[in-house]
């Protein structure tokens, strides 16, 4: 018998992605990896949106929202890479632990 995926399956996958994203943000020190963590979190939200739309909603709101999230994630990545490049030109590396010129 084929296993039919249900809403819970999708929610489990998206929660795993979300937690992975959080884990990356907390543990990694490389600026580009942090960016990847953020992408994971946004894509976890996308899976949720599309799955919820498929199983519970009637309209297309969730699908449209997911497309918007993708577009804006791309914009965010572009801005983030520009900022990281600017920082690289200052420090010659992008380890975020070195970025502490402001004292606490």
């Amino acid at each position, binding site marked *: 018998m084929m296993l039919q995926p249900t809403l819970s399956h999708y929610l489990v996958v998206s929660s795993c992605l979300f937690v992975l994203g959080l884990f990356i943000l907390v543990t990694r020190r490389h600026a580009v990896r942090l960016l990847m963590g953020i992408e994971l*979190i946004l894509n*976890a939200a996308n899976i949720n949106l599309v799955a919820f739309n498929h199983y*519970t909603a*009637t*309209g297309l709101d969730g699908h449209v929202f997911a497309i918007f*999230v993708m577009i804006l994630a791309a914009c*965010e990545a572009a801005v983030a890479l520009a*900022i990281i490049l600017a920082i690289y030109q200052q420090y010659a590396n992008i380890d975020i632990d070195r970025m502490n010129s402001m004292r606490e």
Partner: protein
Amino acid sequence: MNNFAVPILGIQGIMPELLLSLAAVLILLLEMTAGDREGHGALSLSVAGLILAFIATFGADGKQVFSSLLVNDNLSALLDRVFLMAAFLVTLVSRPYLANYGLAKGEFFVLLLLATVGMMVMGAAMDFITMFLGLEMLSLSLYVLAGFFKKDVLSGEAAFKYFILGAFATGFLVFGMAFVFGALGTTNFAAMAHTLSAGSPPFPSVPTLLFGLALILAGLGFKISLVPFHTWVPDVYTGAPTPVTALIATGSKAAGFAALVRIFMITFPGSFQFWGAAFWWLALLTMIVGNLFALVQVEIKRMFAYSSVANGGYLAMAFLSHSDVGIKALLFYLFAYTFMTVGVFGVVSLAGRRERLLISEYAGLSRENPFLAAVMSLFLLSLAGMPGTAGFFGKFYLFAGAVRSGYLGLALVGILTTILSFYYYLRVIVYMYMRESEMPREALELAGSGRTALVLAAAGVLILGCFPNLIWISIEQVF
């Protein structure tokens, strides 16, 4: 004829946003073609766009436009005016500030205008999609603005920290929105409220809905820097160019509160029993932590960063009033807070060719430029809540609203922390008037537009402080 295209799209409903976007595009074109090196053209176009948009906000008709994606009601019009005033004052301050660094480029003003459009979209959003779009427009512009001084280490660092934590918060927000969408089957606020009141949500929904709302509160809590989501504030406020700091502290924070009002107070007032406690704790922690940390700072921008956190706590108290009273008090305080905060950051931007970083460096400012010292004192007294200034009535309405809803303890904490805040605000005044600087500086010249901005902000603080009814009349029309 007329009802062919216009009523369907509702172009007139987004007139202020359109005008600002148009001004931004024109500045970009001007930059490319005419080589506007000094930023004079960019400044005039921004100012023109902002004033026209401000006038256009008076055309609010309460209609929902673009198939209920945006609403053009009195609340969004008032919020638009807060955002536009913040952007207007910041624009005027930016030009001389940037000229000091030789960086008065058109793109700064373009980004500033686009950030303002983002705020306005957030304030008018009736749908998660538009709210998210507005938030991203605002945030992306602000990330770039925070890192605008590319050669400056602090600026780049501020931009990066702001980006990472901001994007993180956006992730939380979208994840939360997805759960609320899952619980109610729609992203439209009016439809959500309808589904809830009809009592037939499509999914076993109360835990899903509450989980989603909690994530949304966390995501927006980052943007408005409620404790414990405030850790980015001191570094970003210190590292970003000071006019940008002013915009982050006022417009961006006001937009975050606008989104919270739309979601929590207007769409889900019935779930107050669940989210009320969260706001109580956030307000309490934010007031206490913000004020205590502000006490011990030696750098002026860092001190105002914590003072801005503390003000977020006072504003969060409005959500406990749980009715129109809260929203009205919040709106009044947003007006007051915008004037005084843009004012203090404006003075910090303009007090010297290079900024003064430490509070002790403000010694002797009253001698170098009596005008700067005088308006700075006014803004500081207003922030402290002195009667006769805007801050007094702002705090009064907020605290009174909390007391009336039975949160006497919270209001008392607010009053006590306000008294505490007198210490660090007055310390700056003491330095300006009663201490001599170690190395005497020359008298300080103020560029025209910077002076205009400070005069306007000071006038706003005094008018709201002496005649609060002037603004209260339009606030009363919100409901």
